[in-house]
């Protein structure tokens, strides 16, 4: 009988129920998309490995480190492999075609980043050819690049037009791996700079270290920095996660606003759903008085009201969750350049479910309290 009452009450004001459902659905969808944006923002952090440390100039990332540090870092106790690289900052045809591009020492870099899956034959060609580059699957798809294509980047940090031959297309080991990056040979960049008699030769943006034991990462980082203390280019070594979080921190204010908006959306829909439930309950106070007159207790009424509220919230919430997936795909199509890793995580779905549940419960609290507390005589007096 209780379920029957809940369902039939839901259908009493189809328009009101429908609009509330739509509102919750849109709110949960918006909440999910905003949470996905936040997740995408942290994608680099999530993808970082506990085994990897990053060493950079302690003043700022914009200040380079000398290549001569390589052997000294390699000799530090606890360091297994060392690679290095520079942000290349090249532009493909025009600025709007932005993608991340790095000049790296390819052999050690691919060894450190085993999550980039590159076919062995392509890897060998890439390692042999100094003008070669490799790109991620998504980036190749975006510009319709194929292995063997000649790609020209316009340098912004390193002036001039730079030509590369695409020798490989990597894919990520899992969905967290960024498949929209471009890698070229650091040696090719350095030799070209030497030919141009540039002051930027033999300079490295960052060193990437793998440690034998992640539990000793902090001590290893300390050892590296100790070597270069009081030198003209002091270093700052941190875990890859901390390094990535440093980038996220630069945009913390934006992230805070997105987080705030995602919660405001939920609070607004809570108020809307509570208003809708209050209207329904106010209209039915006389009926609830009849239930109480017949001997039904507050628990029965509370279950009836909460059941109705939860049903609307969870149905709307389910719709919102289901719509988040195609909406995220559309979002990715338009903003994929800025969010290379953009997918709805399990955690986001759980948050969406919890938000819908919270909306359902919160919307029912006041109306339930009112219907349970109101004296029968007073409620019956509202009839007719």
């Amino acid at each position, binding site marked *: 009988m209780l379920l029957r009452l809940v369902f039939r009450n839901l259908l009493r004001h189809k328009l009101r129920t429908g609009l509330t459902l739509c509102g919750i659905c849109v709110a949960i969808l918006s909440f999910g998309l905003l949470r996905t944006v936040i997740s995408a923002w942290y994608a680099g952090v999530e993808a970082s490995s506990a085994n990897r440390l990053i060493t950079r100039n302690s003043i700022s990332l914009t200040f380079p480190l000398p290549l001569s540090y390589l052997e000294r870092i390699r000799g530090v106790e606890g360091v297994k492999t060392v690679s290095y690289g520079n942000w290349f900052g090249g532009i493909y045809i025009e600025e709007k075609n932005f993608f991340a591009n790095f000049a790296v020492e390819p052999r050690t870099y691919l060894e450190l980043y085993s999550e980039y899956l590159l076919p062995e034959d392509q890897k060998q060609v890439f390692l042999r050819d100094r003008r070669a580059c490799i790109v991620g699957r998504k980036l190749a798809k975006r510009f319709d690049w194929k292995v063997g294509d000649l790609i020209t980047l316009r340098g912004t940090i390193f002036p001039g037009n730079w030509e590369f031959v695409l020798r490989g297309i990597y894919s990520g080991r899992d969905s967290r791996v960024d498949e929209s990056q471009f890698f070229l040979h650091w040696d090719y960049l350095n030799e070209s700079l030497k030919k141009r008699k540039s002051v930027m030769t033999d300079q490295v943006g960052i060193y990437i270290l793998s440690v034998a034991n992640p539990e000793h990462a902090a001590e290893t980082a300390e050892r590296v920095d100790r070597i270069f203390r009081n030198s003209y280019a002091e270093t700052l070594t941190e875990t890859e996660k901390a390094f990535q979080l440093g980038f996220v921190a630069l945009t913390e204010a934006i992230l805070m606003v997105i987080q705030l908006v995602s919660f405001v959306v939920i609070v607004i829909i809570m108020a809307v759903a509570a208003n809708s439930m209050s209207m329904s309950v106010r209209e039915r106070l006389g*009926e609830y008085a*009849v239930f109480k007159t017949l001997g*039904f207790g507050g628990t029965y009424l509370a279950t009836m009201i909460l059941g109705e509220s939860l049903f609307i919230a969870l149905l709307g919430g389910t719709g919102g969750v289901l719509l988040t997936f195609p909406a995220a795909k559309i979002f990715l199509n338009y903003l994929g350049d800025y969010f290379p890793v953009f997918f709805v995580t399990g955690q986001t779905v759980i948050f969406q479910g919890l938000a819908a549940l919270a909306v359902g419960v919160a919307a029912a609290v006041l109306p339930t309290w009112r219907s349970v507390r109101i004296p*029968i*005589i007073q409620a019956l007096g509202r009839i007719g």
Partner: protein
Amino acid sequence: MEEKRAIVELKKLFKSYRRGGQILPVLSDITLDIQEGDFMALMGPSGSGKSTLLNLIAGLDQADSGTIHVAGVDITTLSESELAVWRASNVGFIFQFYNLIPVLTAFENVELPLILTDLSKKERREHVATALNLVKLEDRMDHYPGQLSGGQQQRVAIARAMVTDPAILVADEPTGDLDRASAEEVLSLMDRLSREAGKTIIMVTHDPRAARKARTMRYLEKGVLASAPEISFSQSA
């Protein structure tokens, strides 16, 4: 002839309401016995306290002082939750505006009080069928209240009031919202319930025609039981 016992006993009952800091006495020193099987009409002008007295007897409201015994139970000593349980098995309610649940069919409305009992689904169905048969609405059991006339809705309400076989039936202006023919039908049904099923019915009414159907009549004036004035049909015409 066998002497009937009092099923409702009110002793020195007082009730007042507080409105804006003022205390308004509604019932004063009411002492009244209602015999088992009686069909009693409670009359009086508006604001005389009839509905308040009915609500107190039915356990919907609490008295300021005095005792109310119904079928041997002093309901003034019961808590709100105990009263709810007591009402479920001892009182059947008939309201002026029927107060059926609009989203439930006639059958489901009558079944509603039985949800709180230990009866099986089959037993509940049998009880509901018997109650609807009693009010001659078995062919309308699948209709929703909105699909029934006022008289039919009130008959469903009577079936709902009867279905748990309560000790007393209380009716607050049961014909107040009905046309004359429907009112007559409902009153005849209540009369039959009292005579044939031996139900004790306490009915609040303004309508002298309705009061005439009752076997006894009490008159309230300014919260005090008074001797009844002469009832004239012209009053209700």
